[in-house]
């Protein structure tokens, strides 16, 4: 797998405050990397460092396998980005605003602007002055501007910030489509757990400037499964019974003779009866679920994300 973004102990210190501390990111080609953290966790500062707007106090950045600060201009040409609420020249129309970017990037294809506006569903509003755009429209226009030059990597900082539920849904659809249809690698930050969970293939959790964990969605789902938790007098005998009599293999044995069974949850009564009939005392039997929010709460030391 090709690595698109790699950072080595990236840090930013303002005075005595460590805004970002030793963040080592690894973003693979084609994935949607959800950069999750509370407001003020260091997401935007990290993104600004990735885009060369803020200079790191220490650490290194490699993008597309190249050292960022030595090849900054060439690398940035392959990236599209929006940072927080995208800014536009309010007196200009959408098409005029994009024309500025197209000229600066050196896009000669006149259709590129219309194509980008069409992708985000703003083609009919192309001649509207941007100051009359709603926040949702501005966010979409920001995406149109970011994809104008067909970038290989999109860096989106809080792309659903300030949007209503319909706008969030539309933005989610758009990001997914860009990833699936155009195969763009997407690095997006958010403070909303459910949003990241619905979009990202990998989630990196940043808290108080530190990257606490980076985990694939697959692994995350594993952690989020429902299970039967059963405490027995003889866990060795119990697992033999589970395998031979119930044909269950999807279980884990934990401390204190506790077994977690992840499949056939509807057979909770049957399992209990099996153990009792075979002389195993059942001291605890519950149907549990690892809540994703609880998982992040544990990770952040009890502070909620959103």
């Amino acid at each position: 797998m090709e690595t698109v973004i790699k950072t080595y102990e990236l840090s930013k210190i303002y005075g005595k405050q460590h805004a970002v501390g030793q963040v080592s990111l690894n973003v693979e080609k084609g994935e949607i990397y959800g950069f999750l953290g509370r407001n003020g966790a260091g997401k935007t500062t990290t993104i600004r460092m990735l885009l060369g707007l803020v200079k790191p106090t220490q650490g290194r950045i490699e993008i597309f396998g190249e050292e960022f600060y030595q090849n900054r201009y060439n690398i940035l040409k392959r990236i599209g980005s929006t940072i927080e609420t995208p800014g536009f020249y309010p007196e200009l129309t959408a098409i005029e605003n994009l024309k500025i970017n197209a000229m600066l990037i050196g896009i000669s294809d006149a259709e590129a602007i219309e194509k980008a506006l069409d992708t985000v569903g703003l083609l009919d509003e192309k001649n509207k002055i941007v100051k009359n755009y709603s926040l949702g429209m501005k966010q979409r226009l920001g995406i149109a501007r970011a994809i104008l030059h067909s970038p290989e990597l999109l860096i989106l900082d809080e792309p659903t910030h300030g949007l209503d539920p319909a706008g969030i849904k539309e933005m989610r659809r758009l990001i997914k489509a860009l990833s699936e249809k155009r195969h763009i690698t997407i690095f997006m930050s958010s403070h909303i757990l459910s949003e990241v969970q619905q979009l990202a293939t990998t989630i990196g959790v940043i808290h108080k400037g530190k990257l606490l964990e980076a985990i694939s969605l697959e692994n995350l789902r594993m952690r989020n499964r429902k299970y039967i938790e059963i405490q027995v007098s003889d866990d060795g005998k119990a697992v033999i019974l589970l395998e031979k009599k119930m044909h269950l293999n999807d279980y884990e044995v934990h401390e204190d003779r506790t077994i977690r069974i992840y499949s056939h949850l509807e057979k909770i009564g049957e399992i209990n009866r099996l153990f009792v009939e075979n002389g195993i005392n059942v001291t605890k039997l519950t149907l549990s679920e690892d809540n994703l929010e609880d998982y992040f709460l544990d990770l952040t030391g009890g502070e909620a994300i959103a």
Partner: protein
Amino acid sequence: MLNLLYIEILKLKRSKLFMVSLLGAMVVPVMIFFMLTSMRARNPQSIITFENYFRQTDMFILLMIGTLLFGLLTTYVFNREYQEETLKNLLTIPVGRKSLIISKLLVVLMVILALMLFSFLLTLILGLIGHFEELSVELLIRWGQLYLYSGLLLFLLTPSVILITLLFKNYIAAIGFTIAVSVVSIIVAQSEYVLIYPWTVPGVIALPDLFVENEKFTMIHSWVSLGLTFILPLTASIIYFEKTDIN
């Protein structure tokens, strides 16, 4: 660079700054017109020459309105990228930071020259309406050139406003600064320091017959003062902007 320059001009489209600048550039020709015509009304024997009208208008622009008006223009051109949060987009396209400053500086120069030309044409039209005398082609060419030259000299004062805009990232500090230096100009204009105070120096250089060299200062001092006021803040602006974080 040409692209950047075109884009800077495009950004001014539909901008209120155009109207505000035109109104600002109208103030002095209209004010002097009424001043001269009311003097003539009190003394019907007196004549008003175009020479006098052009001179008075240019002097007031150089010593009062120019610094304020062009300071406001410069602040707007530079500060809008912070206010409208467009700077982060420009720098991640990417546009070179130095190129951005220079292209904006060139736009400021172009607009200043256009406004000076507008003031010159308005002065001419008002002079014709007021039946002012002694108009000639030679006079028109000479004063046309001098208005543009005055604009160029006033442009040399703009880097200090750029530096303040970049440092404080708001309109208030830069506008406060231009008001302060303009007020001081009026005070200094009556003193020997008129030859070295940067914001009166354009007037001294453009209209040298109005100011006399004194024991302390000569025209060389004036040029050095103006040159340093252009070069030092511009260099500081470029260095600061190249190094600063964009938050």
